[in-house]
């Protein structure tokens, strides 16, 4: 197959869209429908890997679609940060589809065609975000992502799902319209362009107050990054089926948020400008507060998915913080954390879903003694927890390491303490779950636990792969590290 790189880049966005057509055509026979999804995700992964290889060989790819308004165009290009995001998202789409087949069938969910279609649409939007060549393109796909995931969040169609969907859409749309769009329009007005450029697009003599205000608008406007106080949508979105929570709310949607923040910090402001803005310090503390508070809230959650959701909010705070630190190590740590947290958190969500499907349990207090009946799941949960905490032998170690170095480089001692404290809190709210599962006896009211078996094999396979991913990222982090350093390489 000989395709030009330009065509391949466009295919990353169009393949999921084509998959939707197939999914809808084959809605009558679930087997074909799911085969189409799997095939599409394999092709997508293949193409993204090809593009990755071309990036390594130093080729640049630019695709220009259409100029909507003067200087506002839909265009795409490939750069290292987007590559990290695209690689993770396309790989985990494949794994999640595998998992979803097991989950959705054994859970006997309805409207599965709508489910797989919206899923594919969301992935298409993610690819658009990852490869966007300018802020406008990114914004367009950012909104598409919000809208395409709304039907997934409200999938159950119950009153609770509707309520959750309302919060989800309400916060994400409001922040993006009221703050993000305003910030984009102002940036366009000040600089006359929205292209992502190494070192930023603001000239050095830009009014610091205005640029600082814009930074605040950006950080608040990108609601998907779930910085407090705009984090409420993430717990609300947990009413969605678990595969959705796994891929979208541990990987695609939230990572689209922090990815956007990183992009803006590095390619719109430029880290040299970022350091001197008057609001950066305030936002750093805000991210720090988000990290700590979310961890504290997570400790109080008995619902496993809710606990994981708050844990995600906290971990997203790390990434935002790393971006705002505006040091090389901070940016490297943030970009690596996008990947390592994705693998860790998706594993945890997969486990939560497996427990729900196999044991019909969603409360942590009911999971005592479960380890003997679901050893694979609980072992995976343990390893993924280690990765979130950031201890060897898991990938999370490296990203947290660089984030710590970043706080030192920037001499942000308070934030360094925050990171340490938060890691302790991570231990406190994650590790007791596998611990009690293996070493505690089931509560008397949970006697029926003996009848529980592991989840269906596709789900277990998915869990094993992502767990393996957590370990591999520790042993072999070099490719990820190379990509992350390439983001700021041309600067030095």
């Amino acid at each position, binding site marked *: 197959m000989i395709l030009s790189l330009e065509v391949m880049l466009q295919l990353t966005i169009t393949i999921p869209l084509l998959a939707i057509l197939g999914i809808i055509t084959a809605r009558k026979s679930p087997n074909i429908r799911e085969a189409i999804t799997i095939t599409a995700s394999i092709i997508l992964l293949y193409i993204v890997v090809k593009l990755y290889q071309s990036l390594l060989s130093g080729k640049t790819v630019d695709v220009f679609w259409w100029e*909507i*308004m003067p200087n506002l165009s839909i265009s795409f290009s490939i750069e290292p940060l987007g590559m990290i995001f695209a690689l993770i998202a396309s790989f985990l789409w494949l794994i999640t589809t595998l998992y979803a087949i097991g989950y959705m069938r054994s859970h006997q969910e309805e409207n599965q065609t709508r489910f797989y279609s919206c899923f594919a649409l969301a992935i298409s939007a993610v690819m658009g975000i990852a490869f966007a060549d300018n802020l406008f393109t990114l914004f367009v796909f950012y*909104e598409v992502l919000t*809208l395409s995931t709304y039907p997934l969040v409200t999938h159950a169609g119950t009153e609770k799902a*509707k309520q959750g969907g309302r919060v989800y*859409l309400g916060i994400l749309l409001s922040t993006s*319209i009221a703050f993000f769009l*305003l910030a984009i*329009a102002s940036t366009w*007005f000040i600089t006359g362009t929205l292209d992502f450029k190494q070192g930023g697009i603001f000239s050095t003599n830009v009014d610091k107050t205005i640029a600082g205000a814009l930074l605040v608008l950006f950080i608040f406007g990108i609601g998907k990054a779930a910085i407090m106080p705009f984090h409420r949508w993430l717990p609300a979105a947990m009413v969605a089926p678990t595969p959705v929570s796994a891929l979208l709310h541990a990987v695609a949607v939230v990572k689209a948020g922090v990815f956007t923040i990183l992009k803006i910090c590095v390619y719109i402001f430029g880290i040299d400008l970022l350091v001197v803005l008057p609001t950066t310090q305030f936002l750093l503390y805000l991210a720090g507060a988000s990290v700590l508070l979310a961890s504290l809230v997570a400790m109080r959650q008995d619902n496993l998915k809710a606990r994981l959701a708050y844990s995600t909010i906290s971990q997203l705070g790390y990434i935002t913080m790393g971006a705002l630190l505006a040091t090389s190590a901070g940016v490297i740590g943030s970009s690596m954390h996008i990947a390592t947290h994705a693998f860790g958190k998706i594993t945890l969500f997969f486990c939560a879903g497996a427990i729900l499907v196999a044991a019909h349990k969603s409360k942590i207090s009911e999971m005592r003694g479960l380890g003997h009946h679901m050893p694979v799941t609980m072992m995976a949960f343990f390893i993924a927890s280690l990765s979130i905490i950031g201890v060897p032998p898991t990938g999370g170690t490296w990203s947290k390491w660089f984030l710590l170095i970043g706080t030192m480089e920037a001499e942000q001692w308070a934030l360094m303490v925050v990171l340490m404290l938060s890691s302790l809190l991570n231990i406190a709210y994650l590790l007791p779950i596998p611990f009690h599962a293996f070493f505690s006896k089931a509560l008397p009211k949970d006697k029926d636990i003996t009848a529980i078996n592991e989840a269906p094999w596709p789900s277990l396979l998915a869990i094993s792969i992502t767990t393996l991913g957590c370990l591999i990222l520790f042993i072999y982090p070099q490719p990820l590290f190379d990509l992350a350093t390439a983001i700021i390489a041309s600067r030095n």
Partner: protein
Amino acid sequence: MISHLPVLQVIVPLMAAPLCLLLKRPQLVWLFSLFASAIAFIISILLLQHVMTSGVISYELGGWKAPWGIEYRIDKLNAFLLLIITAISTVVLIAAQTSLEKEIPKEKHTLFYILYLLSLTGMLGIVSTGDAFNVFVFLEISSLSAYALIALGNDRRALWASYQYLIMGTIGATFILIGIGLMYQMTGTLNMEDLSQRLPQVAQTRTVFTAFVFVIVGVCLKLALFPLHLWLPNAYAYAPSIVTVFFAATATKVAIYLLIRFTFTVFGLSFSFATLPLQGLFLTLGLAGIFVASSAAIYQKNVKHVFAYSSIAQVGYIMVGISTSTVTGLTATLLHMFNHALMKSAIFLALGAVVYRMGTIQLSSFHGLGRQMPLTMAAITIGGLSLIGMPLTVGFVSKWYLLIALIEQGWWPVAVLILLGSLLAVVYVWRIVEVAYFKEPLAGSVPVKEAPVMFLIPIWTLIIANIYFGIDTRLSVQVAQLAAQSLFGMSP
């Protein structure tokens, strides 16, 4: 032939109206009206092309020279308006016959088409004429037929709504007439070009001030500027569906055209905005309109009322654009007139389809409609997204220009308010979407089928236009920009 186009634009529907009487069968009358409207549409395209390539067309009615005889004067501004009006009128007429079947007794169909064509004549006349008194004549033609059209609604409240509109509309028209009379008294001319030459010489007199105020208040009544909007919601809600679509998309636009014509061309920019406090007035009333009407829309039970209030809010956006009194602001205004015509006609036509199937338009009748009328509901959803201002729809284009215009002026608070205003649109649109997609049909309600093809064709033509002109903005932006520039005397 080409040289007579300006007058043919008005004459064709005017002559077609009485001819309808000769064709007895309603179906023939419908086809004939459609034909007449299509001809008018083609003429408007030719006119626009001509104006864009070779500048202003001046046509002397009956061969009398300009200041003495009646002049039809087509420049970029009114060519743009003519295009909007005739395009919408033609597309809407496609659905007319099907819609009327359910809403109006058969024997009144012919009458309906005659009134419709007369109303169209009136609007086209107002827009194409260059003579102030002629404006009044056509205003009465279009208004009188509008009162009758609204009264044809099968709800008895239509009579009351029509009567309200009659009273308010007549006051408005009288005010305009008084204003024109005073201008004539001061200058001895009725030709707009001539007036714009002569008025500055007598600008500082009380009579001219009074004339100005009368004209502006009269026009603002017709365009439903808050707080002069009271006639609009009921008139839109109880009129036959087709009439609602036609008026929502065009009638207020014509009044806004008059406002722009009088303030920018006849009285002149410096008089309107420097001598008089029009800027502050329009800004305040526009913003108040956005918030009051959008909030009112949230609480309506009748879905036609929801979008009627939304129309008043959209007038607010248009007024804010005018109040900047800059080229960008006026471009935003003109763009929004075009874009709003597209979105509101699509939405109201889809509502017409709902009325056709359900017989009512209360929010409660939307329960479960997402499944029963998927194409119609999808159209309402996309139209709603356009109203909110999602990227890739027309709504985004005008919002972007308005934002840039406000930032250009440094009116940051206004920019924020505008964006907050569009969040209210999210609320009132999503209320309908939620009911349609998440509620089960009411117990005891008869399941309905998708709307007939004759509805779906025009609805989806308009929806596709909503998306197409949101992506390919060359036509709308270019014409709006050139028209705005010529109003500021920047280009021929």
